[in-house]
Protein backbone atom coordinates (compact mmCIF):
# COMPACT_ATOMS: atom_id res chain seq x y z
CA UNK A 1 0.00 0.00 0.00
CA UNK A 2 1.34 3.43 -0.86
CA UNK A 3 1.33 6.14 1.74
CA UNK A 4 -1.24 8.93 1.44
CA UNK A 5 1.21 11.45 2.81
CA UNK A 6 4.92 10.97 2.60
CA UNK A 7 7.51 13.34 4.02
CA UNK A 8 11.08 12.54 3.00
CA UNK A 9 14.13 14.07 4.66
CA UNK A 10 12.36 17.36 5.36
CA UNK A 11 14.62 20.18 6.56
CA UNK A 12 13.62 23.64 7.72
CA UNK A 13 16.05 26.15 9.19
CA UNK A 14 15.37 29.51 10.80
CA UNK A 15 18.49 31.68 10.94
CA UNK A 16 20.78 28.76 11.64
CA UNK A 17 18.40 26.96 13.99
CA UNK A 18 17.28 23.71 12.41
CA UNK A 19 13.61 23.50 13.33
CA UNK A 20 12.93 20.37 11.31
CA UNK A 21 15.92 18.13 10.76
CA UNK A 22 15.73 15.39 8.12
CA UNK A 23 12.33 14.13 9.20
CA UNK A 24 10.74 11.18 7.43
CA UNK A 25 7.08 10.46 7.93
CA UNK A 26 4.65 8.24 6.08
CA UNK A 27 0.93 8.22 6.77
CA UNK A 28 -1.19 5.41 5.35
CA UNK A 29 -4.75 6.03 4.18
CA UNK A 30 -7.18 5.81 7.09
CA UNK A 31 -4.53 6.12 9.75
CA UNK A 32 -4.81 8.28 12.87
CA UNK A 33 -1.32 9.46 13.72
CA UNK A 34 -0.22 11.82 16.47
CA UNK A 35 2.81 14.03 16.34
CA UNK A 36 4.12 14.86 19.81
CA UNK A 37 7.18 16.44 21.30
CA UNK A 38 8.21 19.19 23.72
CA UNK A 39 7.57 22.85 22.84
CA UNK A 40 9.76 23.97 19.99
CA UNK A 41 10.39 20.47 18.72
CA UNK A 42 9.20 21.37 15.21
CA UNK A 43 5.70 19.89 15.06
CA UNK A 44 3.90 22.98 13.81
CA UNK A 45 6.81 23.86 11.53
CA UNK A 46 6.43 20.44 9.95
CA UNK A 47 2.69 21.10 9.43
CA UNK A 48 3.48 24.47 7.89
CA UNK A 49 5.98 22.93 5.48
CA UNK A 50 3.51 20.24 4.44
CA UNK A 51 0.67 22.69 3.82
CA UNK A 52 2.68 25.29 1.91
CA UNK A 53 2.88 27.97 4.61
CA UNK A 54 6.65 27.60 4.84
CA UNK A 55 9.10 26.70 2.10
CA UNK A 56 11.25 23.78 3.20
CA UNK A 57 15.04 24.02 2.88
CA UNK A 58 15.35 20.41 1.87
CA UNK A 59 13.46 17.19 1.38
CA UNK A 60 10.16 16.45 -0.26
CA UNK A 61 6.48 16.26 0.60
CA UNK A 62 4.33 13.87 -1.41
CA UNK A 63 0.55 13.64 -1.20
CA UNK A 64 -0.88 10.68 -3.11
CA UNK A 65 2.43 10.57 -4.91
CA UNK A 66 2.20 14.24 -5.98
CA UNK A 67 4.97 16.58 -5.02
CA UNK A 68 3.68 19.36 -2.75
CA UNK A 69 7.10 20.80 -1.99
CA UNK A 70 6.55 24.13 -3.76
CA UNK A 71 2.77 24.32 -3.73
CA UNK A 72 1.19 27.40 -2.07
CA UNK A 73 -1.42 26.83 0.68
CA UNK A 74 -4.47 27.24 -1.54
CA UNK A 75 -3.23 24.58 -3.96
CA UNK A 76 -2.49 22.14 -1.14
CA UNK A 77 -6.00 22.74 0.20
CA UNK A 78 -7.56 22.08 -3.19
CA UNK A 79 -5.76 18.76 -3.49
CA UNK A 80 -7.67 17.57 -0.45
CA UNK A 81 -5.46 18.43 2.52
CA UNK A 82 -7.27 20.35 5.25
CA UNK A 83 -5.64 21.86 8.30
CA UNK A 84 -6.51 23.78 11.42
CA UNK A 85 -4.33 26.29 13.22
CA UNK A 86 -2.98 26.27 16.73
CA UNK A 87 -4.05 29.87 17.26
CA UNK A 88 -7.79 29.68 16.85
CA UNK A 89 -8.46 30.96 13.40
CA UNK A 90 -11.79 32.09 11.94
CA UNK A 91 -13.01 34.86 9.64
CA UNK A 92 -14.23 37.18 12.41
CA UNK A 93 -16.54 39.40 10.36
CA UNK A 94 -18.23 36.58 8.46
CA UNK A 95 -21.11 34.74 10.08
CA UNK A 96 -20.51 31.25 11.43
CA UNK A 97 -22.40 29.81 8.47
CA UNK A 98 -20.39 31.82 5.96
CA UNK A 99 -17.17 30.74 7.66
CA UNK A 100 -18.02 27.21 6.66
CA UNK A 101 -19.21 28.12 3.17
CA UNK A 102 -15.85 29.69 2.38
CA UNK A 103 -14.19 26.32 2.84
CA UNK A 104 -16.32 24.53 0.28
CA UNK A 105 -17.02 27.11 -2.40
CA UNK A 106 -13.51 27.32 -3.81
CA UNK A 107 -13.36 23.57 -4.25
CA UNK A 108 -16.76 23.39 -5.90
CA UNK A 109 -16.07 25.97 -8.58
CA UNK A 110 -14.17 29.17 -9.08
CA UNK A 111 -15.75 30.79 -12.09
CA UNK A 112 -15.65 34.53 -11.58
CA UNK A 113 -18.25 35.46 -14.16
CA UNK A 114 -20.62 32.65 -13.18
CA UNK A 115 -20.38 33.86 -9.59
CA UNK A 116 -21.04 37.45 -10.59
CA UNK A 117 -24.17 36.64 -12.59
CA UNK A 118 -25.12 33.78 -10.25
CA UNK A 119 -25.80 31.09 -12.80
CA UNK A 120 -28.20 28.29 -12.00
CA UNK A 121 -25.31 25.87 -11.48
CA UNK A 122 -23.56 28.14 -8.98
CA UNK A 123 -26.80 28.70 -7.07
CA UNK A 124 -27.36 24.96 -6.91
CA UNK A 125 -23.82 24.38 -5.61
CA UNK A 126 -24.36 27.15 -3.09
CA UNK A 127 -27.54 25.49 -1.86
CA UNK A 128 -25.65 22.22 -1.45
CA UNK A 129 -22.90 24.00 0.44
CA UNK A 130 -25.40 25.68 2.75
CA UNK A 131 -27.01 22.35 3.49
CA UNK A 132 -23.68 20.75 4.33
CA UNK A 133 -22.63 23.75 6.42
CA UNK A 134 -25.84 23.57 8.46
CA UNK A 135 -25.29 19.88 9.05
CA UNK A 136 -21.74 20.49 10.27
CA UNK A 137 -22.84 23.39 12.46
CA UNK A 138 -25.30 20.96 14.00
CA UNK A 139 -22.56 18.39 14.48
CA UNK A 140 -20.43 20.79 16.52
CA UNK A 141 -23.47 22.23 18.32
CA UNK A 142 -23.37 25.71 16.79
CA UNK A 143 -26.68 25.69 14.90
CA UNK A 144 -28.06 28.49 17.04
CA UNK A 145 -25.06 30.67 16.17
CA UNK A 146 -25.27 30.25 12.39
CA UNK A 147 -25.92 33.93 11.71
CA UNK A 148 -23.69 35.38 14.42
CA UNK A 149 -20.38 36.94 13.45
CA UNK A 150 -17.64 34.39 14.09
CA UNK A 151 -15.69 37.04 15.99
CA UNK A 152 -18.44 37.22 18.60
CA UNK A 153 -18.22 33.53 19.50
CA UNK A 154 -16.41 32.22 22.57
CA UNK A 155 -12.94 30.73 22.28
CA UNK A 156 -14.21 27.18 22.41
CA UNK A 157 -16.96 27.89 19.90
CA UNK A 158 -14.47 29.41 17.51
CA UNK A 159 -12.30 26.35 17.89
CA UNK A 160 -15.23 24.10 17.01
CA UNK A 161 -16.11 26.37 14.09
CA UNK A 162 -12.57 26.17 12.74
CA UNK A 163 -12.71 22.39 13.07
CA UNK A 164 -16.02 22.25 11.20
CA UNK A 165 -14.51 24.49 8.51
CA UNK A 166 -11.73 22.00 7.93
CA UNK A 167 -14.36 19.28 7.48
CA UNK A 168 -16.43 21.26 4.95
CA UNK A 169 -14.67 20.06 1.78
CA UNK A 170 -14.70 16.45 3.02
CA UNK A 171 -10.89 16.32 2.85
CA UNK A 172 -8.91 13.14 2.44
CA UNK A 173 -6.27 14.22 4.91
CA UNK A 174 -6.81 16.31 8.02
CA UNK A 175 -3.95 17.98 9.84
CA UNK A 176 -5.16 19.17 13.24
CA UNK A 177 -2.88 21.47 15.22
CA UNK A 178 -3.68 21.12 18.91
CA UNK A 179 -7.46 20.66 18.72
CA UNK A 180 -7.68 19.99 22.47
CA UNK A 181 -5.48 22.84 23.70
CA UNK A 182 -6.92 25.56 25.95
CA UNK A 183 -10.47 24.23 26.04
CA UNK A 184 -12.40 22.79 28.96
CA UNK A 185 -12.49 19.04 29.73
CA UNK A 186 -16.01 18.59 28.34
CA UNK A 187 -14.93 20.03 25.06
CA UNK A 188 -11.77 17.94 25.03
CA UNK A 189 -13.95 14.85 25.19
CA UNK A 190 -16.17 16.26 22.49
CA UNK A 191 -13.14 16.83 20.25
CA UNK A 192 -11.90 13.33 20.93
CA UNK A 193 -15.26 11.93 19.86
CA UNK A 194 -15.27 14.02 16.70
CA UNK A 195 -11.81 12.86 15.74
CA UNK A 196 -12.63 9.22 16.44
CA UNK A 197 -15.79 9.56 14.36
CA UNK A 198 -13.71 10.85 11.46
CA UNK A 199 -11.35 7.95 11.88
CA UNK A 200 -14.24 5.50 11.75
CA UNK A 201 -15.43 7.15 8.54
CA UNK A 202 -12.06 6.24 7.07
CA UNK A 203 -10.51 9.71 7.08
CA UNK A 204 -6.79 10.08 7.51
CA UNK A 205 -5.89 12.29 10.46
CA UNK A 206 -2.59 13.66 11.67
CA UNK A 207 -2.76 15.30 15.05
CA UNK A 208 -0.34 17.64 16.80
CA UNK A 209 -1.29 17.53 20.45
CA UNK A 210 0.13 18.20 23.88
CA UNK A 211 -2.62 16.53 25.83
CA UNK A 212 -1.15 13.06 26.40
CA UNK A 213 -4.45 11.54 27.51
CA UNK A 214 -5.97 12.45 24.17
CA UNK A 215 -2.94 11.28 22.22
CA UNK A 216 -2.59 7.93 24.01
CA UNK A 217 -6.33 7.38 23.93
CA UNK A 218 -7.08 7.76 20.26
CA UNK A 219 -3.90 7.45 18.18
CA UNK A 220 -2.96 4.30 16.31
CA UNK A 221 0.61 5.45 15.99
CA UNK A 222 2.63 8.18 17.68
CA UNK A 223 5.60 10.01 16.21
CA UNK A 224 7.87 11.88 18.62
CA UNK A 225 9.92 14.89 17.60
CA UNK A 226 12.64 16.50 19.67
CA UNK A 227 14.82 19.38 18.50
CA UNK A 228 13.49 18.88 15.00
CA UNK A 229 14.44 15.22 14.81
CA UNK A 230 12.26 12.19 14.90
CA UNK A 231 13.37 10.30 18.00
CA UNK A 232 10.70 7.63 18.24
CA UNK A 233 7.74 6.17 16.44
CA UNK A 234 5.31 3.44 17.35
CA UNK A 235 2.04 2.46 18.98
CA UNK A 236 1.02 4.54 22.02
CA UNK A 237 1.86 1.86 24.62
CA UNK A 238 5.41 1.51 23.33
CA UNK A 239 5.93 5.28 23.15
CA UNK A 240 4.77 5.72 26.72
CA UNK A 241 7.60 3.51 27.91
CA UNK A 242 10.28 4.58 25.46
CA UNK A 243 13.25 5.92 27.48
CA UNK A 244 14.21 8.41 24.77
CA UNK A 245 10.73 9.93 24.89
CA UNK A 246 10.74 10.13 28.67
CA UNK A 247 14.14 11.78 28.52
CA UNK A 248 13.00 14.31 25.91
CA UNK A 249 10.05 15.31 28.06
CA UNK A 250 11.49 15.16 31.54
CA UNK A 251 15.23 15.38 31.07
CA UNK A 252 17.73 12.89 32.38
Amino acid at each position, binding site marked *: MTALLEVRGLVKRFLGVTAVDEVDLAVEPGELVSLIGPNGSGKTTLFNCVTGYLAADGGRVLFRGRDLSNA*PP*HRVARLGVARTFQQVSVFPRLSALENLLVFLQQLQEEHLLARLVRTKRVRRLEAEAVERARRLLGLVGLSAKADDAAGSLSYGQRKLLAFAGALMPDPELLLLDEPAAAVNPTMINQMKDHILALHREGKTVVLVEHNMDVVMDISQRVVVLDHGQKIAEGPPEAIRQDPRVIEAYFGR
Partner: protein
Amino acid sequence: MRRAGWLGLGVIVVAAPWLVAAAVPRQQRYVLHVLIFTALFAALALSYDLVVGHVGSLSLAHPAFFGVGAYAAAILATRAGWPFLAGLPAAALAAAGVAALVGVPLFRLTEHAFAVGTLGLALVASVVANNWVEVTRGPLCITGIPKPTLGPLAVTTLPAFYWLALAALVAVGVLYRGLTTFRLGRAFHAVRDNEPLAGAAGIDPLKYRMLAFTIAAALAGGIGALYVHYLSVMCPEEMTVALTVNLLVIVFLGGVGSLRGVLVGAVLFTALPEVLRLAPTWRLVIYGGLLLLVIVRSPEGIESLLRRVTGARAGR
Protein backbone atom coordinates in the same frame (compact mmCIF):
# COMPACT_ATOMS: atom_id res chain seq x y z
CA MET B 1 -43.35 50.42 3.15
CA ARG B 2 -39.58 50.17 2.76
CA ARG B 3 -39.90 49.45 -0.92
CA ALA B 4 -42.11 52.52 -1.30
CA GLY B 5 -39.45 54.57 0.46
CA TRP B 6 -36.74 53.44 -1.92
CA LEU B 7 -39.01 54.00 -4.92
CA GLY B 8 -39.72 57.53 -3.70
CA LEU B 9 -36.04 58.23 -3.26
CA GLY B 10 -35.36 56.89 -6.75
CA VAL B 11 -38.02 59.11 -8.28
CA ILE B 12 -36.63 62.16 -6.49
CA VAL B 13 -33.07 61.38 -7.61
CA VAL B 14 -34.08 60.83 -11.24
CA ALA B 15 -36.36 63.88 -11.29
CA ALA B 16 -33.77 66.07 -9.56
CA PRO B 17 -33.11 68.37 -12.56
CA TRP B 18 -36.80 69.38 -12.72
CA LEU B 19 -37.09 69.67 -8.97
CA VAL B 20 -34.02 71.88 -8.89
CA ALA B 21 -35.39 74.00 -11.73
CA ALA B 22 -38.62 74.46 -9.83
CA ALA B 23 -37.09 75.09 -6.42
CA VAL B 24 -34.05 77.23 -7.18
CA PRO B 25 -34.41 78.48 -10.76
CA ARG B 26 -31.63 81.04 -10.37
CA GLN B 27 -29.07 78.59 -9.10
CA GLN B 28 -30.12 75.67 -11.25
CA ARG B 29 -26.77 75.33 -13.05
CA TYR B 30 -24.75 75.47 -9.88
CA VAL B 31 -26.88 72.95 -7.99
CA LEU B 32 -26.86 70.54 -10.92
CA HIS B 33 -23.11 70.87 -11.13
CA VAL B 34 -22.83 69.88 -7.48
CA LEU B 35 -25.16 66.94 -8.06
CA ILE B 36 -23.09 65.73 -11.01
CA PHE B 37 -19.95 65.93 -8.91
CA THR B 38 -21.70 64.06 -6.12
CA ALA B 39 -22.72 61.23 -8.45
CA LEU B 40 -19.23 60.95 -9.95
CA PHE B 41 -17.60 61.05 -6.51
CA ALA B 42 -20.02 58.46 -5.18
CA ALA B 43 -19.13 56.12 -8.06
CA LEU B 44 -15.42 56.75 -7.54
CA ALA B 45 -15.74 56.14 -3.80
CA LEU B 46 -17.58 52.86 -4.42
CA SER B 47 -14.80 51.69 -6.71
CA TYR B 48 -12.25 52.69 -4.06
CA ASP B 49 -14.17 50.81 -1.38
CA LEU B 50 -13.80 47.57 -3.36
CA VAL B 51 -10.13 47.61 -2.41
CA VAL B 52 -10.17 49.37 0.96
CA GLY B 53 -13.37 47.92 2.36
CA HIS B 54 -13.63 44.49 0.82
CA VAL B 55 -10.15 43.08 0.47
CA GLY B 56 -8.84 45.32 3.25
CA SER B 57 -5.84 46.79 1.46
CA LEU B 58 -5.31 50.47 2.17
CA SER B 59 -4.47 51.62 -1.34
CA LEU B 60 -3.67 55.31 -1.77
CA ALA B 61 -3.17 54.94 -5.52
CA HIS B 62 -6.72 55.65 -6.64
CA PRO B 63 -5.96 59.15 -8.05
CA ALA B 64 -3.37 57.54 -10.32
CA PHE B 65 -5.97 55.23 -11.90
CA PHE B 66 -8.51 58.02 -12.11
CA GLY B 67 -5.84 60.19 -13.75
CA VAL B 68 -4.68 57.53 -16.21
CA GLY B 69 -8.26 57.04 -17.37
CA ALA B 70 -8.91 60.78 -17.50
CA TYR B 71 -5.80 61.50 -19.54
CA ALA B 72 -6.34 58.50 -21.81
CA ALA B 73 -9.86 59.70 -22.61
CA ALA B 74 -8.75 63.33 -22.97
CA ILE B 75 -5.89 62.51 -25.34
CA LEU B 76 -7.88 60.03 -27.42
CA ALA B 77 -10.73 62.51 -27.80
CA THR B 78 -8.68 65.59 -28.63
CA ARG B 79 -5.80 64.15 -30.66
CA ALA B 80 -7.18 60.98 -32.18
CA GLY B 81 -10.77 62.14 -32.42
CA TRP B 82 -12.12 59.02 -30.73
CA PRO B 83 -15.81 59.15 -29.85
CA PHE B 84 -16.75 59.02 -26.17
CA LEU B 85 -18.09 55.46 -26.38
CA ALA B 86 -14.70 54.23 -27.64
CA GLY B 87 -12.65 56.40 -25.29
CA LEU B 88 -14.54 55.25 -22.19
CA PRO B 89 -13.58 51.55 -22.38
CA ALA B 90 -10.09 52.52 -23.52
CA ALA B 91 -9.69 54.69 -20.42
CA ALA B 92 -10.93 51.87 -18.19
CA LEU B 93 -8.56 49.41 -19.87
CA ALA B 94 -5.60 51.76 -19.57
CA ALA B 95 -6.17 52.19 -15.84
CA ALA B 96 -6.73 48.46 -15.34
CA GLY B 97 -3.53 47.78 -17.28
CA VAL B 98 -1.52 50.00 -14.98
CA ALA B 99 -3.11 48.34 -11.94
CA ALA B 100 -2.35 44.85 -13.26
CA LEU B 101 1.23 45.87 -13.91
CA VAL B 102 1.98 47.46 -10.54
CA GLY B 103 -0.37 45.30 -8.47
CA VAL B 104 1.75 42.18 -8.25
CA PRO B 105 4.86 43.89 -6.84
CA LEU B 106 2.74 46.21 -4.65
CA PHE B 107 0.84 43.33 -3.04
CA ARG B 108 4.13 41.78 -2.00
CA LEU B 109 4.15 44.61 0.53
CA THR B 110 1.91 44.19 3.55
CA GLU B 111 -0.35 46.68 5.30
CA HIS B 112 1.50 49.94 5.94
CA ALA B 113 4.21 49.23 3.40
CA PHE B 114 1.49 48.62 0.84
CA ALA B 115 -0.11 51.96 1.68
CA VAL B 116 3.22 53.75 1.28
CA GLY B 117 3.96 51.90 -1.96
CA THR B 118 0.62 52.90 -3.45
CA LEU B 119 1.12 56.46 -2.24
CA GLY B 120 4.41 56.39 -4.17
CA LEU B 121 2.54 55.33 -7.29
CA ALA B 122 0.06 58.20 -6.86
CA LEU B 123 2.88 60.70 -6.44
CA VAL B 124 4.79 59.39 -9.45
CA ALA B 125 1.63 59.54 -11.58
CA SER B 126 1.07 63.12 -10.50
CA VAL B 127 4.67 64.09 -11.30
CA VAL B 128 4.41 62.45 -14.72
CA ALA B 129 1.18 64.32 -15.45
CA ASN B 130 2.89 67.59 -14.58
CA ASN B 131 6.11 67.01 -16.47
CA TRP B 132 5.45 64.81 -19.48
CA VAL B 133 4.46 67.92 -21.35
CA GLU B 134 4.54 66.35 -24.83
CA VAL B 135 1.69 64.06 -23.87
CA THR B 136 -0.23 65.70 -21.05
CA ARG B 137 0.63 69.36 -21.81
CA GLY B 138 1.60 69.51 -18.13
CA PRO B 139 0.23 72.50 -16.23
CA LEU B 140 -1.19 73.92 -19.47
CA CYS B 141 -3.88 71.25 -19.22
CA ILE B 142 -5.61 69.42 -22.04
CA THR B 143 -8.47 71.63 -23.16
CA GLY B 144 -11.30 71.44 -25.64
CA ILE B 145 -12.40 67.91 -24.76
CA PRO B 146 -15.73 67.49 -26.53
CA LYS B 147 -18.99 66.80 -24.72
CA PRO B 148 -19.80 63.10 -24.77
CA THR B 149 -22.01 61.63 -27.47
CA LEU B 150 -23.86 58.36 -27.09
CA GLY B 151 -24.36 57.37 -30.71
CA PRO B 152 -26.77 59.95 -32.11
CA LEU B 153 -27.36 61.43 -28.64
CA ALA B 154 -25.14 64.36 -27.70
CA VAL B 155 -24.92 64.97 -23.95
CA THR B 156 -24.66 68.74 -23.98
CA THR B 157 -27.05 70.01 -21.31
CA LEU B 158 -26.48 69.81 -17.58
CA PRO B 159 -29.57 67.67 -16.91
CA ALA B 160 -28.47 65.24 -19.63
CA PHE B 161 -25.05 64.96 -18.08
CA TYR B 162 -26.60 64.52 -14.66
CA TRP B 163 -28.55 61.52 -15.95
CA LEU B 164 -25.43 60.12 -17.59
CA ALA B 165 -23.50 60.44 -14.33
CA LEU B 166 -26.43 58.90 -12.46
CA ALA B 167 -26.50 55.97 -14.91
CA ALA B 168 -22.77 55.50 -14.34
CA LEU B 169 -23.32 55.53 -10.58
CA VAL B 170 -26.10 52.95 -10.85
CA ALA B 171 -23.91 50.75 -13.07
CA VAL B 172 -21.01 50.96 -10.61
CA GLY B 173 -23.40 50.34 -7.71
CA VAL B 174 -24.86 47.21 -9.34
CA LEU B 175 -21.39 45.87 -10.10
CA TYR B 176 -20.24 46.73 -6.56
CA ARG B 177 -23.18 44.83 -5.14
CA GLY B 178 -22.53 41.81 -7.36
CA LEU B 179 -18.86 41.71 -6.47
CA THR B 180 -19.25 42.16 -2.73
CA THR B 181 -22.01 39.67 -1.95
CA PHE B 182 -22.51 35.96 -2.50
CA ARG B 183 -19.46 33.84 -3.34
CA LEU B 184 -17.18 36.56 -4.72
CA GLY B 185 -17.84 38.84 -1.78
CA ARG B 186 -17.27 35.98 0.62
CA ALA B 187 -13.92 35.20 -0.97
CA PHE B 188 -12.90 38.89 -0.83
CA HIS B 189 -13.96 39.14 2.80
CA ALA B 190 -12.16 35.93 3.72
CA VAL B 191 -8.93 37.39 2.35
CA ARG B 192 -9.57 40.63 4.23
CA ASP B 193 -10.42 38.96 7.54
CA ASN B 194 -7.74 36.28 7.71
CA GLU B 195 -5.34 35.76 4.85
CA PRO B 196 -3.60 32.56 6.09
CA LEU B 197 -6.94 30.90 6.78
CA ALA B 198 -8.21 31.97 3.35
CA GLY B 199 -5.30 30.02 1.90
CA ALA B 200 -6.32 26.95 3.88
CA ALA B 201 -9.80 27.35 2.39
CA GLY B 202 -8.37 27.11 -1.12
CA ILE B 203 -8.45 30.84 -1.86
CA ASP B 204 -5.48 32.39 -3.61
CA PRO B 205 -5.24 35.70 -1.71
CA LEU B 206 -3.14 37.46 -4.33
CA LYS B 207 -5.59 36.55 -7.07
CA TYR B 208 -8.55 38.06 -5.22
CA ARG B 209 -6.61 41.15 -4.15
CA MET B 210 -5.53 41.69 -7.75
CA LEU B 211 -9.05 41.15 -8.97
CA ALA B 212 -10.49 43.82 -6.67
CA PHE B 213 -7.58 46.17 -7.33
CA THR B 214 -7.83 45.87 -11.13
CA ILE B 215 -11.61 46.17 -11.30
CA ALA B 216 -11.47 49.19 -8.99
CA ALA B 217 -8.81 50.77 -11.22
CA ALA B 218 -10.86 50.11 -14.35
CA LEU B 219 -13.90 51.77 -12.78
CA ALA B 220 -11.81 54.72 -11.60
CA GLY B 221 -10.41 55.09 -15.13
CA GLY B 222 -13.90 55.05 -16.62
CA ILE B 223 -15.12 57.65 -14.14
CA GLY B 224 -12.04 59.71 -15.03
CA ALA B 225 -13.18 59.63 -18.67
CA LEU B 226 -16.67 60.80 -17.74
CA TYR B 227 -15.17 63.52 -15.59
CA VAL B 228 -13.00 65.06 -18.32
CA HIS B 229 -15.76 64.88 -20.90
CA TYR B 230 -17.93 66.77 -18.47
CA LEU B 231 -15.40 69.45 -17.52
CA SER B 232 -13.90 69.48 -21.05
CA VAL B 233 -10.50 70.07 -19.49
CA MET B 234 -7.98 67.86 -17.67
CA CYS B 235 -5.26 69.28 -15.47
CA PRO B 236 -2.66 67.54 -13.28
CA GLU B 237 -4.29 69.02 -10.15
CA GLU B 238 -7.25 66.71 -10.63
CA MET B 239 -5.17 63.71 -9.57
CA THR B 240 -3.28 64.86 -6.51
CA VAL B 241 -3.24 63.28 -3.07
CA ALA B 242 -6.09 65.64 -2.13
CA LEU B 243 -8.36 63.31 -4.09
CA THR B 244 -7.24 60.40 -1.91
CA VAL B 245 -8.04 62.42 1.19
CA ASN B 246 -11.55 63.11 -0.12
CA LEU B 247 -12.07 59.44 -0.90
CA LEU B 248 -10.79 58.38 2.51
CA VAL B 249 -13.19 60.80 4.20
CA ILE B 250 -16.13 59.57 2.14
CA VAL B 251 -15.39 55.88 2.62
CA PHE B 252 -14.30 55.85 6.24
CA LEU B 253 -16.78 58.39 7.58
CA GLY B 254 -19.57 57.03 5.42
CA GLY B 255 -19.07 53.39 6.26
CA VAL B 256 -16.25 51.29 4.93
CA GLY B 257 -17.38 48.15 3.11
CA SER B 258 -21.01 49.25 2.86
CA LEU B 259 -22.87 50.41 -0.26
CA ARG B 260 -25.28 52.56 1.73
CA GLY B 261 -22.52 53.99 3.92
CA VAL B 262 -20.34 55.01 1.00
CA LEU B 263 -23.29 56.58 -0.83
CA VAL B 264 -24.33 58.56 2.25
CA GLY B 265 -20.70 59.57 2.76
CA ALA B 266 -20.40 60.75 -0.84
CA VAL B 267 -23.58 62.82 -0.66
CA LEU B 268 -22.64 64.33 2.68
CA PHE B 269 -18.99 65.07 2.03
CA THR B 270 -19.32 66.26 -1.57
CA ALA B 271 -22.48 68.30 -1.21
CA LEU B 272 -21.86 69.53 2.32
CA PRO B 273 -18.81 71.73 1.60
CA GLU B 274 -20.87 73.34 -1.17
CA VAL B 275 -23.89 73.93 1.03
CA LEU B 276 -21.58 75.46 3.60
CA ARG B 277 -20.57 78.10 1.08
CA LEU B 278 -23.57 79.95 2.51
CA ALA B 279 -21.28 80.71 5.43
CA PRO B 280 -18.00 81.23 3.59
CA THR B 281 -15.87 82.38 6.52
CA TRP B 282 -16.72 79.43 8.69
CA ARG B 283 -17.05 76.89 5.91
CA LEU B 284 -13.94 74.84 6.53
CA VAL B 285 -14.24 75.17 10.30
CA ILE B 286 -17.76 73.75 10.27
CA TYR B 287 -16.72 71.03 7.83
CA GLY B 288 -13.76 70.05 10.00
CA GLY B 289 -15.92 70.13 13.11
CA LEU B 290 -18.46 67.81 11.51
CA LEU B 291 -15.71 65.38 10.51
CA LEU B 292 -14.50 65.34 14.11
CA LEU B 293 -18.02 64.87 15.42
CA VAL B 294 -18.64 61.85 13.21
CA ILE B 295 -15.30 60.29 14.09
CA VAL B 296 -15.84 60.79 17.81
CA ARG B 297 -19.50 59.80 17.95
CA SER B 298 -19.37 56.97 15.46
CA PRO B 299 -15.84 55.87 14.64
CA GLU B 300 -17.12 53.16 12.31
CA GLY B 301 -18.83 55.75 10.16
CA ILE B 302 -22.31 57.01 9.57
CA GLU B 303 -23.39 53.57 8.36
CA SER B 304 -23.04 52.06 11.84
CA LEU B 305 -25.04 54.99 13.19
CA LEU B 306 -27.78 54.33 10.64
CA ARG B 307 -27.72 50.63 11.47
CA ARG B 308 -28.10 51.38 15.16
CA VAL B 309 -31.08 53.63 14.48
CA THR B 310 -32.87 51.26 12.11
CA GLY B 311 -31.92 48.26 14.26
CA ALA B 312 -33.37 49.91 17.35
CA ARG B 313 -36.59 50.60 15.48
CA ALA B 314 -36.86 47.03 14.22
CA GLY B 315 -36.22 45.75 17.74
CA ARG B 316 -39.17 47.58 19.18
